[in-house]
């Protein structure tokens, strides 16, 4: 089977202008992936499915991954004009000072696809797509018109992560009930305070259980 670079070359030959980048995967498994852009994704997917050599007709797995915003603190050496006392007189001197600069790397939601070929019996080919951010730009094209097996799995990613798939025939919640509000698999999900009695609660679970018991006791007193 072709390597990731060869597949990228084949995609660029068939779908010119597609934004395809290779994402290296550190670690022993060495399953490198291709990052696609949203605009050409469906065309690339159709090419991968119908190409005579690759023939990736089996979409095995659709996974959602949540990458939250990261605050990165860097130490930067900066030359600045500093006022200092030199020999009793106030002068401006140039000095190299270390400053800590913080910036927020925006997070995104990622969807990972694993493709195999039932005809040629090779694989996996890993594709990725990333959303703009985690709050308002969460739309991605759906692969359901290309591979039907994405049907339920994309619904699950929508349900648990909040990625809206354009072109999906029936996008609604699948594992949680329809009126549920939040997206449970995100890293910043706070589960509701419907705590059950747990005799061996310890650490944060114990703190939350105590807070919950106090709230329940207060509500009962107020109700009385």
């Amino acid at each position, binding site marked *: 089977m072709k390597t990731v670079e060869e597949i990228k070359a084949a995609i660029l030959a068939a779908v010119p202008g597609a934004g395809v980048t290779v994402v290296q995967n550190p670690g022993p498994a060495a399953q490198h992936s291709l990052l696609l852009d949203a605009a050409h994704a469906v065309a690339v997917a159709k090419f991968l499915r119908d190409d005579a050599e690759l023939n990736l007709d089996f979409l095995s797995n659709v996974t959602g991954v949540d990458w939250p915003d990261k605050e990165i603190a860097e130490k930067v050496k900066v030359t600045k004009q500093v006022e200092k006392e030199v020999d009793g007189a106030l002068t401006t001197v140039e000095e190299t000072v270390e400053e800590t600069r913080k910036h927020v790397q925006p997070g995104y939601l990622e969807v990972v696809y694993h493709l195999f070929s039932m005809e040629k019996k090779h694989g996996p080919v890993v594709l990725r797509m990333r959303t703009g951010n985690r709050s308002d730009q969460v739309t991605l094209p759906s692969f359901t018109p290309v591979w039907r097996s994405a049907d339920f799995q994309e619904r699950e990613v929508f349900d648990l992560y909040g990625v809206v798939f354009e072109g999906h025939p029936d996008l609604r919640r699948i594992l949680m009930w329809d009126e549920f509000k939040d997206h449970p698999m995100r890293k910043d999900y706070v589960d509701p305070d419907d705590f059950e*009695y747990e*005799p*061996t*609660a310890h650490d944060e679970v114990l703190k939350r259980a105590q807070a919950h018991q106090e709230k329940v006791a207060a509500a009962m007193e107020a109700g009385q």
Partner: protein
Amino acid sequence: MLGEGILKGLAETARNFAGSFVSKERLTTVQYPEERAPAIEASRVFPFLVYDGPEWEAGLRCVACQICEKECPPKCIYIEKSKDKKPDYVGKLQIYPARFDIDVSVCMSCQICVEVCPFEAIKMDTEFELATDDRFGGLLHDRKSLAKSNEYYHTIHPTEAAEVDARLAEEKAKVEEKARAAAAAAAAKAAEAPKSEAPKTGEGTEAQ
């Protein structure tokens, strides 16, 4: 002939039905609770704490290292360390658990606590008839109800208990060997010391 397949199937069922009256292996039902299926040695239900000797508090092997509490997947173990120490099976002073609770309604019998315990203190019991009508505390087993003797451990898992005993005896023998070697070295040093002191006193009296 139409219906031949059905007749073949009915003949099979009839053979099994008639056979269950004559052959033991065709009658596979065990009338529980009057009869019990033969117990399998390796089976595991819920954990218990092992103690050596006649007294459970003094002989408890657990030293409250809290490794089982950390590794337990559903976090059903709750340990509080004691303030004082008591001697363990080799004589070293160790802390012990002042409180060791296992919530059996949360425990999923995975046996990871047994695997990670470095002191052979927690093992799996085979007692499964534990139903109670106290919903909130009845399935919370504390230190006293969890402590069972090493002899009991031998009755439920004989091969495993024999291996554990052999390992502990080996450890104890190694510790005793080291203690004996240390004592012999100290005794050798003490034997040398009086010899080096004797000439000094002789000189002192001479100087006087």
